[in-house]
């Protein structure tokens, strides 16, 4: 068994789980040592593969008994180390909870287990004329439980919103092992909304009711090639400023295009310094009108080539380069960091210019791929891990990009989450009071701090078992840890 977990823990786990569902073999344990953020690694104490909410609840209760932390894991595609295991804890993997429990088109909803992949939902309802709207690029593998925990987005979230806008109810196992329903029809505080995006720190989602979205009457996808990012950016501003909310509006710069070309031969227009992908969907008359507007705006802003997808195959061809961008940079660089930050959309030109300066100053190439419509940047910071000091310089550039985001009133993460990777940046965005207040929620759900501890918050808050009636000054102020002004 895992060396750091207490004696007897595994035996207790085996009381509610089949022996094949409890992994203690060190070799097998190691396959779970990291998520998509591969430079953070820890071998979990024990891994369990439950099949039901009751089993998860039982595992969580055992963890409580021993005071052992637990971490949920879906597909492990997270990019912020959210599913990084604890050597002294239990990793609860949802890979055996992959059933779609019901699909109800009349209610426009489906109920699924947490291990179901994002794309599997869409595949199950596509023939009925529906789909599940949030579409992270990792949708073929990432799980809906992971999406809930990260409040994942995707290219089409500009028009349709994020995971939180598409989850109608959850069954969760609370950090003390109770099974509780949270629903968007419940009166009172929106706990459902607070749970989504909490990165596994408020409990484990065991059943998810998602909204199904009607497939639009028509979809038009267009690719516009520009000489440079600047013109592309102006086109984006003019489109949004003109009152159009495209389903998606994505941009790639020259370096990202080069990488995509090398990896998947996407055949984007030669000589493009930037490409813009705009997808419009909805009722035919609306899309027709918007298409005319968008093409006019692109031309006016210097697009030298416009391609329109005539069918799904051509649409897929346009998206291919964009969707493969992260992995593709592997073709042009031995190592890279995927960054995720947000700026107000109008600050994009300025921020991109600053990133360019950083890149030249530190001699680190940065490829830019972004959700241009909502200012969500994914700079890919490229470096050669064989070169001494390159990794550190890349880290530095990557961190400075986040500083830029915060300086411009943006966010340190638009969709990949805080996890272990960015908890140290949280104080750049939030004051101690902000973070302490957020942790009041954590204390309400998880007073013992057992559910995915060490994630999201730079400093854990001590909850105190029973909240006493507090009068006068805040204890943190009293102890000099916080200022209240």
């Amino acid at each position, binding site marked *: 068994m895992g060396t750091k977990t207490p004696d007897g823990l595994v035996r207790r786990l085996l009381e509610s789980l089949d022996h094949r569902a409890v992994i203690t073999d060190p070799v097998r344990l190691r396959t779970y040592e990291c998520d998509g953020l591969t430079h953070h690694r820890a071998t979990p104490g024990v891994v369990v593969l439950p099949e039901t909410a009751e089993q998860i609840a039982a595992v969580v209760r055992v963890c409580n008994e021993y005071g052992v932390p637990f971490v949920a894991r879906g597909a492990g595609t997270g990019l912020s180390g959210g599913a990084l295991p604890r050597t002294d804890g239990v990793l609860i993997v949802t890979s055996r909870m992959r059933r779609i429990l019901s699909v109800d088109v009349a209610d426009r909803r489906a109920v699924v287990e947490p291990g179901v992949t994002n794309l599997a939902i869409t595949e199950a309802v596509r023939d009925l004329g529906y789909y599940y709207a949030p579409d992270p690029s990792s949708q073929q593998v990432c799980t809906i439980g992971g999406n809930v925990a990260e409040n994942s987005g995707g290219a089409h979230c500009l028009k349709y919103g994020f995971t939180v806008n598409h989850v109608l109810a959850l069954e969760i196992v609370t950090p003390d092992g109770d099974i509780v329903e949270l629903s968007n029809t419940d009166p009172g505080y929106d706990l459902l909304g607070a749970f989504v995006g909490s990165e596994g720190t408020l409990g484990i989602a065991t059943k998810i009711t998602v909204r199904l979205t009607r497939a639009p009457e028509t979809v038009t996808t267009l690719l516009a090639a520009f000489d440079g990012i600047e013109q592309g950016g102006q086109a984006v501003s003019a489109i949004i400023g003109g009152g159009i909310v495209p389903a998606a509006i994505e941009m790639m710069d020259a370096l990202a295009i080069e990488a995509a070309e090398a990896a998947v031969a996407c055949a984007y227009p030669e000589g493009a310094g930037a490409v813009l992908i705009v997808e419009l969907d909805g009722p035919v008359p609306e899309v027709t009108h918007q298409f005319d507007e968008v093409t006019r705006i692109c031309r006016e802003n210097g697009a030298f080539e416009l391609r329109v997808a005539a069918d799904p195959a051509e649409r897929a061809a346009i998206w291919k380069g964009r969707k493969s961008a992260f992995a593709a940079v592997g073709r042009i660089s031995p190592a890279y960091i995927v960054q995720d930050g947000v700026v107000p959309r109008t600050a994009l030109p300025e921020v991109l210019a600053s990133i360019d300066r950083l890149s030249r100053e530190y001699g680190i190439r940065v490829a830019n791929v972004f*959700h241009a419509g909502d200012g969500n940047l994914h700079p890919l910071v490229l470096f050669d891990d064989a070169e001494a000091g390159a990794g550190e310089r890349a880290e530095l550039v990557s961190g400075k990009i986040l500083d830029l985001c915060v300086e411009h009133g943006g966010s340190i993460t638009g969709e*990949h989450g805080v996890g272990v990777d960015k908890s140290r940046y949280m104080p750049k965005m939030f004051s101690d009071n902000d973070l302490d207040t957020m942790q009041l929620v954590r204390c309400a759900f998880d007073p013992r701090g057992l559910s995915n501890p060490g994630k999201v918050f730079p400093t854990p808050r001590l909850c105190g078992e029973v909240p006493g009636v507090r009068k*006068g000054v805040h204890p943190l102020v009293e102890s000099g840890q916080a200022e209240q002004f």
Partner: protein
Amino acid sequence: MDAPHETGGAPLAGALHRTGVTIREAGPDDAVAGVSPRWVALPENTGEVAALMRVSAEHDLAVTPVGGGTRLHWGPPPERCDLLIDTCCLNQVLEHASGDLVVRVQAGLTMDSLAETLAAEGQELSLDVPLDGATVGGVLATAVAGPRRFRHGTARDLLIGVTVVLADGTTAKSGGKVVKNVAGYDLGKLFTGSYGTLGVITEAAFRLHPIPDDRRWIIAELPAPGTPGTGAVRGDGRPDAPERPGSPPGLDVLAAELAASQAEPSAIEVDWPDARGGPVVAVLVEGTAADARARAVRDLMAGHGTARITAGPPGWWGTLPGEDVLLEVRVPPSRAGGALRAIMARGLPAHVRGSLATAALQVTLPPDVGGSAFAEFVSRVRDDLGRLGGGLTVLTAPQELADRVDRWGPVGALPLLRRVKERFDPGRRMSPGRSVGGI
């Protein structure tokens, strides 16, 4: 620490005045559901709210925030209330970044003045504007939403950042002013539906949308239920009984067809004032080619009643069906018709209105319905709705009626809600008792 009530008003009033915030003695009009506060404070910014809350913490004052005061009486009376924090002067637009389609406002800004500011730039917050005078903070705290919830969601879906002041005077913010942001917990969501029991919302930021080019309403009057000519609802109408042909209003079918329509309506509403008559269904289409899309909707509705297209909404659009007794009903969308029948079949003069497509309906009854009839109605309808997978909440009712029922019905998450309340307001000084389960 002083025991406030024994030390009398003077030192306390002094402490409140020393915050520099405008304070006045409360009058009879300031009562919160019958509970009279002693003072009313009129802060102008978050810092002033924090100063007031610190004094309140030191002197153990119970506080209730008030926005426009349009629905301050909703919910049970507070267990106690010393200070009313009136947000009327927290009414500034802090930042309208029109290029980013984002606005940041103080929470006491009224929804109609916000709409006016945004309209000047051709933008809107895609929520329906509630009663005159209702504020941003009030809309968030009550979580009431209008017709367009079907396409745009409710306030929580468009809220991207919030600043709140807690019972102990701590100021905290979450989110920000960008539409995409997953850093930290979302306190805005938590405070949605909080009825002033967690703290004071002082600022909010929202995602905006361009004002649609054009709007059309398609209105259809559906025939009365029951055998044609008799105009009566069968008293034994079981909610889960299949709809009989000729037994109007075929609402489930119509609702499903409308919701799935490629004309993409923004709202699908029903108004059913009287069981002896039929319901009216009104649909809103917005945006480009609204006319063509409205005709498509009209054709769809034609099979169910006479449908016409109008350039303006019906008079009842976006308003609640009543004032004194209001219940909110939620069921899965395909059960809206069943829920309507369950309500109308109970033999009381109920008036139902709301979102047919999301099956969020409000019901009103006459205030003189009588305690036992009311209690029976709530309990029977709740049973029926339970079978349909839904529930019922009493938004407001005269005390003598409300006392006869559980306002919220069973809420599975109540223990968690309680724990959140205990952490945020351990002294129970924020509108104590006003939300679910008396938290």
